[in-house]
């Protein structure tokens, strides 16, 4: 109730939150430049451009379930398993000498694996009404176990050069993974704003039962939301495979926290129903700049983990403060406007 009323008004002033986030980005860049004199250089921005897509793809995978009022804790391990599927196809057909056909087959295998695991999750959530946290958690345990069982905790590496270009190459001066991410973000934006599924996602996040009673096939919509989320994990798995030149179960585990953080910093409603792709992408850039800055400052890896946690709490506290302050003035207005009608 509280958050929904504040969010609805935020949607009305669309540019305001984007401008706010861009302002915050500028502040972060300036602060980092003062903190480290090596920060404001071309190298930093190249590294940001190469590292952003992995985090970004996970965040997109997290975004749709979050807007639908759910959660997908299995994103990182779905990506690992998709990467494994692709690695398996590549190794079964020639390893480092595999041709273009095999690479396309491998990509298809990765996407299919991601989509299949997402579909299973979505079907269970939609049909049984079980908590998405729980279903995705057990899927995560299962996928991690499956991956460890197949790889025995080791790395799989040795891929054709064409695959590595997808992770490390440049196209028109822009890293290839960034192109992939930009394409996926654009598709997500269109899905969320222009398609029936995007509309259904937001409605389900606001009120599942009301959506079902108004004639939307919620079971199918929820299944598709998680299937698309799994598909995006598949893309993330391919990009991770290409940029690390290896697949290991547990790669990118830390992205889970940061992707949740990016969504909430990008003004997705934690209770579901509201959220857009553009602010989330800006939030992603902010977080990646901070991550690269921390890296440059030589921050300890564990310290960085703790700081991400603190940052998530800080973002949620700020949102609470903002929503509450806003809410009080809104309530006064609404009470006088509605008179006693709602009572």
């Amino acid at each position: 109730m509280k958050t929904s009323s504040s969010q609805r008004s935020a949607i009305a002033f669309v540019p305001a939150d984007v401008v706010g986030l861009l302002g915050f980005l500028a502040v972060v860049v300036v602060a980092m430049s003062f903190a480290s004199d090596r920060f404001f250089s071309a190298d930093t921005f190249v590294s940001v451009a190469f590292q952003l897509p992995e985090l970004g793809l996970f965040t997109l995978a997290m975004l749709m379930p979050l807007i639908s009022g759910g959660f997908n804790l299995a994103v990182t391990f779905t990506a690992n398993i998709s990467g494994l599927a692709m690695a398996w196809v590549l190794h079964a057909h020639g390893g480092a000498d595999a041709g273009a056909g095999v690479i396309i087959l491998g990509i298809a295998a990765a996407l299919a694996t991601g989509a299949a695991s997402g579909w299973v999750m979505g079907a269970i959530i939609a049909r049984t009404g079980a908590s998405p946290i729980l279903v995705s958690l057990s899927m995560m345990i299962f996928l991690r176990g499956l991956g460890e069982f197949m790889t025995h905790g080791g790395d799989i590496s040795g891929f054709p050069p064409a695959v590595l270009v997808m992770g490390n190459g440049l196209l028109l001066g822009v890293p290839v993974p960034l192109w992939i991410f930009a394409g996926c973000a654009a598709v997500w934006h269109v899905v969320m704003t222009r398609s029936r599924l995007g509309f259904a996602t937001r409605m389900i996040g606001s009120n599942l039962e009301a959506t079902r009673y108004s004639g939307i096939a919620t079971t199918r919509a929820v299944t598709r939301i998680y299937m698309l989320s799994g598909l995006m994990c598949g893309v993330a798995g391919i990009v991770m495979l290409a940029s690390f030149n290896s697949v290991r179960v547990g790669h990118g585990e830390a992205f889970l926290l940061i992707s949740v953080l990016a969504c909430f910093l990008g003004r997705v409603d934690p209770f579901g129903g509201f959220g857009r792709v553009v602010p989330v992408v800006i939030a992603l850039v902010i977080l990646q700049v901070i991550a690269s800055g921390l890296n440059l400052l030589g921050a300890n890896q564990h310290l960085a983990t703790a700081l991400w946690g603190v940052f998530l709490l800080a973002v949620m506290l700020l949102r609470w403060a903002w929503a509450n302050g806003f809410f009080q003035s809104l309530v006064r207005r609404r009470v006088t406007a509605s008179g006693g009608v709602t009572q």
Partner: protein
Amino acid sequence: MPDLRKLGIGSIEALLILVIAVMVIGLSLTTSTFLTLPNLFDLLNQSSVNIIFAVGLLVVLIAGGIDISFAVGASVVQYLTALTVMRLGGGNWALGFLASAAFGFLMGAINATFIYRFRIVSIVVTIATFNVFFGGLMFLTGGVSIYDLPDWWMNRVSLITLKTSSGVADLALPVAVMFATVVATWFLLRRTTTGRQLYAMGDNPEAARRVGINIGAMHYIAFGWLGMMAGIAGLMQAHYVQEVVPNALYGRELDVLAAVVLGGARLGGGRGTILGAILGILLTAITANGLNLLGISPYAFKMIIGAVILIAITLSSGGFAKLVGSRFASQRVKAFS
């Protein structure tokens, strides 16, 4: 079977008991080592820390929350307790329990404050505090373990020692502590009004608030209780392995959560029993033990547990529980009317 429910055995518990019984019979027939006193006592010793975690987590789940930070929180408590007792010149068991329960309560209270006062979803808060606790602990300690714990903490305390033909069977202190925490949690949930209020809040927080339940106090009680149990579990774990390793409990929260949910607790609150939680832990422990004795790759274990839970969720909300539970359905209607 009218008296099963009076004993607190619902359909999920009955199903778990059945599965465990089948597994025990199967393992006793296929392996010579499973049904021996040393193995069974070891199983109990190793499960007791998880059961202490589980009864604490159960209280939070019943109250409608979720917590994934408790296991790393317990590591923080281990460290703080070790530093405290060493600063106080050694200490003893009473001081150890007091310190770890107090520090644990503090960890829970931090979570409760964010969840209740600032209205942040509990999964988000505990993902954040999980990283703060773990990252902070690893950073501040540099990942260094503590080996020189006081003697009272390190020395094994045996409750029962039996010499059998297949080795020495030894029941250790954690089992006794486990019984104490189980009884205490049972008393809290089943014999106090606070317990009933926790169930009420988990089922419908708004309705609970309107009948006059203090929602804030309930948050602090639920998360504080889990914190206390986690602290005590941490104390027992350090006692059992005789060292404090900062990342020893990392990842334990998922095993415990999965097992408690397997035991019939519902995410979203209002449902769950202590017997179910214990059976869930025992089932996973026996599965791990059995796979080990059968010589199956330990890598397969997590995959099997994940698959079991996925299937259990599907069946429990779908048809299987209704199928099994239909026997009790008529009585349940009576009880609710």
